């Protein structure tokens, strides 16, 4: 191929950023706010704020040796731009070597920007990602190539001339490619340093013009040129989203108290998580360590069911597959995760704990097809994306799927090894998104997604104490959603967002002849209107409706009958079959103001009203959050705080007789939080926050006064308090890492007059330290160490090694009528704490770059020194002895991944 060296493009790509200070927020968790125009990819820019806009363009020099060698490359930089628009610091984020990095850095230092602006318009320092692409250009065809006969005099008059600019900054997009096809054939031109291009000697007719530039959405237009006409055009390209960054935040600054960010590089490299984004959440302050095989989130001392998970604004029942091996959405599909550990804004409700909202990223918009495939010892996945054929890139798709194969591989290995376990969980998930932009300021996305987990166990003889159980046991859970989402930045003052979804959740459980099948058909919707009603004041108003039709079928043992001693085998009871179906409708509405009296302060008062058709009463939940920057200069010092009321309806089984009771009210909590953030360097920041949660009207049960059974009521109360600290080194070219520490206490008083007691997942100390360093040559090494208080348990046999233990105590009483032992708990509920959990995980990555794709391999080793961490206590049949149940042993995992 005849090639000429040429710098095809060196293009700015504002991918993400952060605008210092405070400003408003998106209407929905996943959406960008109004006034955040150019950067479709910028996930965190707030309402009224402006990203830095380039004022000039400095093409880098193509490294001569690389040019001779025919090398092409892309270099991604991190630019620190001060509030005058000057580039103060340049860091290579994605190096390419061969002189490309140095060339890109030199060019970037000469860039000038219109500085970022806060919501009130004041300039602010900002950090952005900026990409230079180096490509070799094809040789220009000779003037007569393919043209055939010499054009007539009339033909030579027709021409198309124009300029290509970056949208939002009027910066010429030098190096962009303009492809013209029409009656006179196909031609290609490259935009020059001033942004100009031209095609001469065209014939009359319709021409299709496709303009592409790395880092920008392709533009596909049709121009009609009349005979003898020469037209001039001006094209503006919009910066594309390429998913380079995924953001996890404790809370978005405008509406909530805390904000924490984990970039995608961090998320993919945290040791012990297999690069799973949602498992990375467990390393943040305020998140307790879940038991070894429990896929749950324990946020600020709240129960797992007190934290709700959304996918693109739609509630989903699961966040992790079985055993927490991985989350239900692959990291590569995630744009960002909004994580609210408490004091979340009025847009969220129905839970007392935390909120996790996962945003699936938009398909790439460069008119090309991309893909990724990855496989490790647990599962394999792929992602494909690009334009939908025949739509001229007006509709883009992104599709992904994943399936585990532990059952197919490890099951055989275990069987061969004689481990006695041949049944292992199977999980899969899928995502398919179609996105279009009806107008430049709006987008529509249709998404299908779902996940499925199942496990089956073969029982060849009855389990102890249950003579009537035979056959297999199985458990299956899954969910599927069809979701339609619409976002419209109507103008710089108004914005509207809405999302609606229909779906089904399935839960199936079977043991021998017993089964429980539950299908929940849900219809949910959220809509939010945001209007800037004055300088520094923004109004958010929204509706949040969740409705669910539950259809449950049950076949199982009848409740104990009169005359049957309790404690006997349940499998010998008569089988009863019952069905339940009914609607749960939970409408809610909220109004919220974002008040920025100065450029450094923000106050967000709001109120939310929740109704529940199966719960008595209506809940009115006022909330207010605020933050203030003590200084307007670097290093930033911020104070923040909030207080708010939160309500959570009882679990369905608590309200449905005969298992539950009618007439219950919702559980209630009041969140208090106060904290501070302090920058030390551009990379190092410390944040500290204290929190207190007062719980009341908690649903609990007590024995009936007469006869057997229990009754439920809003009888419990509780309190949770603690402090969180995060010392973080933000990712630069070589390193990222942080130390997170949480000190907390979670207490409940289940019944009036009862003694206050800690909950089982109360973890006094939670310390996580992690870091990852790029060694060069494509190698990266990371480590994570965790030191966490052990969970609490109610011991039936005391720990012989502890003072005061009576080894010969009667630990159980024998129920002679049925032949079983009933434990006599020792020393009160949750009175024993397991030994301290400690574990070291490491990860090594090696990346190989090729011309058009890259290959990565990694080794992730959990529990390097095989710490025998205690997860529970096992007792013998008559409670005369006990032994610890330990968690994950040393666990290496190897993976391979290719991207193009």
């Amino acid at each position, binding site marked *: 191929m005849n090639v000429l060296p040429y710098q095809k493009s060196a293009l700015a790509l504002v991918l993400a950023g952060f605008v210092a200070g405070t400003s408003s927020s998106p209407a929905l968790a996943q959406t960008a706010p109004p006034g955040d125009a150019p950067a479709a990819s910028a996930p965190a820019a707030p309402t009224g704020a402006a990203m830095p806009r380039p004022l000039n363009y400095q093409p880098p020099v193509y490294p001569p040796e690389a040019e001779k060698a025919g090398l092409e490359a892309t270099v991604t930089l991190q630019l620190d731009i001060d509030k005058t628009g000057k580039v103060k610091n340049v860091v290579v984020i994605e190096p390419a070597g061969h002189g490309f990095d140095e060339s890109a850095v030199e060019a970037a230092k000469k860039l000038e920007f219109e500085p970022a602006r806060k919501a009130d318009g004041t300039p602010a320092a900002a950090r952005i990602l900026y990409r230079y692409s180096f490509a070799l250009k094809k040789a220009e065809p000779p003037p007569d190539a393919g043209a055939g006969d010499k054009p007539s005099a009339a033909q030579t008059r027709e021409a198309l001339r124009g300029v290509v600019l970056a949208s939002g900054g009027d910066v010429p997009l030098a190096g962009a490619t303009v492809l013209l096809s029409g009656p006179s054939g196909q031609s290609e031109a490259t935009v020059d340093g001033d942004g100009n291009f031209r095609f001469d000697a065209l014939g009359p007719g319709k021409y299709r013009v496709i303009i592409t530039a790395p880092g920008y959405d392709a533009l596909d237009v049709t121009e009609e040129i009349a005979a003898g006409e020469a037209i001039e055009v001006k094209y503006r390209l919009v910066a594309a989203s390429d998913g380079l960054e995924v953001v996890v935040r404790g809370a978005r600054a405008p509406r909530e108290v805390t904000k924490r960010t984990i970039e995608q590089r961090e998320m993919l490299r945290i040791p012990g998580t297999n690069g799973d984004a949602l498992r990375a959440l467990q390393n943040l302050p305020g998140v307790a360590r879940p038991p*070894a*095989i429990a896929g749950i989130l324990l946020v600020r001392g709240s129960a797992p069911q007190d934290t709700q998970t959304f996918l693109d604004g739609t509630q989903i029942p699961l966040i992790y597959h079985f*055993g927490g*091996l991985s989350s239900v959405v692959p990291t590569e599909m995630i744009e960002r995760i909004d994580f609210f550990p408490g004091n979340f804004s009025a847009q969220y409700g129905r839970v007392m704990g935390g909120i996790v909202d996962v945003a699936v990223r938009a398909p790439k918009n460069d008119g090309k097809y991309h893909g990724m495939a990855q496989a490790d*010892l647990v599962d394999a996945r792929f992602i494909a994306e690009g334009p939908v054929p025949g739509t001229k890139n007006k509709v883009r798709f992104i599709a992904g799927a994943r399936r585990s194969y*532990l059952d197919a591989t*490890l099951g*055989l*290995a*275990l069987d*061969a*090894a*004689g*481990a*006695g*376990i041949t049944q292992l969980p199977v999980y899969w998930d899928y995502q398919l998104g179609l996105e279009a932009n009806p107008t430049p300021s709006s987008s529509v996305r249709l998404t299908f997604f779902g996940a499925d987990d199942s496990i089956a166990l073969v029982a060849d003889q009855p389990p*102890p104490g249950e*003579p*009537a159980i035979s056959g297999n046991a199985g458990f299956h859970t899954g969910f599927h959603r069809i979701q339609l989402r619409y976002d419209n930045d109507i103008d710089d003052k108004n914005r509207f967002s809405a999302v609606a979804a229909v779906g089904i959740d399935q839960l199936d459980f079977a043991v021998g002849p017993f089964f429980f099948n539950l299908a929940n058909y849900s219809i949910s919707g959220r809509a939010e209107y945001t209007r800037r009603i004055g300088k520094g004041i923004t109004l958010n108003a929204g509706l949040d409706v969740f409705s669910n039709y539950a259809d449950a079928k049950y076949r199982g043992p009848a409740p104990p009958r*009169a*005359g*049957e*001693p*309790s404690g006997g*085998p349940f499998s*010998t*009871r008569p089988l009863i079959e019952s069905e339940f179906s009914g609607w749960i409708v939970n409408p809610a509405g909220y109004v919220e103001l974002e008040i920025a009296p100065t450029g450094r302060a923000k106050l967000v008062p709001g109120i939310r009203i929740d109704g529940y058709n199966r719960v008595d009463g209506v809940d009115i939940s006022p909330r207010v959050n605020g933050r203030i920057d003590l200084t307007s200069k670097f290093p930033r010092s911020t104070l923040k705080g909030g207080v708010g009321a939160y309500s959570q309806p009882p679990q369905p089984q608590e309200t449905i007789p005969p298992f539950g009771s009618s007439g219950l009210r919702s559980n209630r909590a009041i969140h208090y939080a106060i904290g501070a953030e302090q920058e030390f360097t551009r990379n190092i920041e410390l944040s500290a926050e204290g929190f207190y949660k007062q719980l009341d009207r908690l649903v609990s049960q007590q024995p009936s006064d*007469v*006869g057997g*059974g229990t009754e439920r009521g809003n009888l419990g109360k509780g309190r949770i308090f603690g402090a969180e600290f995060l010392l973080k080194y933000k990712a630069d070219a070589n390193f990222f890492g942080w130390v997170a520490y949480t000190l907390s206490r979670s207490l409940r008083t289940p019944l009036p007059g009862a003694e206050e007691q800690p909950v089982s997942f109360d973890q006094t100390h939670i310390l996580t330290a992690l870091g990852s360093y790029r060694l060069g040559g494509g190698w990266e090494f990371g480590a994570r160490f965790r030191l966490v208080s052990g969970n609490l348990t109610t011991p039936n046999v005391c720990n012989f090694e502890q003072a005061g233990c009576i080894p*010969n*105590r*009667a630990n159980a*009483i*024998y*129920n*002679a*009528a*049925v*032949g079983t032992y*009933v434990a*006599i*708990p*020792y*020393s*009160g509920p949750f*009175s024993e704490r397991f030994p301290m959990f400690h574990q070291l995980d490491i990860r090594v990555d090696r990346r190989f770059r090729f011309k058009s794709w890259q290959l990565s391999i990694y080794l992730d080793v959990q529990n390097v020194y095989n710490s025998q961490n205690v*997860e*529970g206590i*096992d007792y*013998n049949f*008559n409670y*005369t*002895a006990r032994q610890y*149940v*330990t*968690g*994950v042993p040393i*666990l*290496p995992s190897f993976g391979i991944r290719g991207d193009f």
Partner: protein
Amino acid sequence: MKYTRSFRRHVLGALAAATLAAPIASTGGCSPGWVSSNLVNGLRVFAVTADKPYAQPGEEVRFEMSFYDGYPDPEGDGPRPVQILWIGGCYNPPGDLYYGCFPQLLKTFQSLGESGGNLPPGLIGFGPTFTTTIPEDILSQRPAPDGGSKYGLQFVFFFACAGEIKPIELDPSGKAGFFPFGCFDAEGNRLAADSFVPGFSQIYTFEDGRTNQNPPVAGMTLDGEPIPEDFTEAPTIKACPSTVDERRAVGCFAGDPYENCPEHEIDLIVEPTIAEIDPGEMVGGEQIYEAVWVDWLVEAGDLTGGGISLISGVTEGYKDEHSTKWIPPDEPGLYQIWGVVRDTRGGSTYVQRYIRVE
């Protein structure tokens, strides 16, 4: 070739052990776990059989305890003597729960302590049997249920000790659950928990006068042949050479511990009519029966066919197949096997036989 297979096996095993996540480790898949609950190696109470599992107000009920001390005796003096203490006097506790009796009993004993009077009959007893009388007001003090016949419930507590029973000091913190007696050896040392059994049993009384009989059992079979009650006529089978340690080394590269060891079928001789009608209980318009099952216990060897078998289900009725499989120990000797038959209404019968292993 053998080396290759072995190597492959170990590689696969290492892979499995290294990559399988918590489920195996957390469930103890590679550890031997506890000794089976069906192996009698300490003091065990098999059953407390009431002559009338359902009784009427004013009726006398006699309880008989069947037990065995399987604790290894280094002196070779045989099973240790067992003391048994009975405590009655509790009926209709809150929630029908046994621990609802504790305040009731405390009140009774405090009252006795203050008055210094004689113990009422049926309150305290010693030995393997105990007799009590169903209170006359056991039904009248209960409210009528929403459906079905009114019923009352009486509890009887016991404490069996392979030594001497003595009262103990209670936990002064009051947090720990407790049982107010301990078991001591001749030297006054408090014995470990496998040398005593605290427990309870219960008797129902129905207003409609319904009764319940203990399930009748005619005997036990070994490989289809009845086992004589007289241990001198016990059948003889061959030992399985696998040691106890070899048998417990399950999973994670363990071999088959029962290779070349024959399984023996153990069964009970019962009539298909063993289960009684459960009055008033209907499912799908059809009358149901009490369920009947058998708990198997052995002095040695392994129950490879399971430790529990259903004899009759509530709706499906009598089951032809209710045997288990037993693999004898490696040590020759005379070994006991017990079958404790229970019904879901508190009835029980126990059968004991000897098998000689050589």
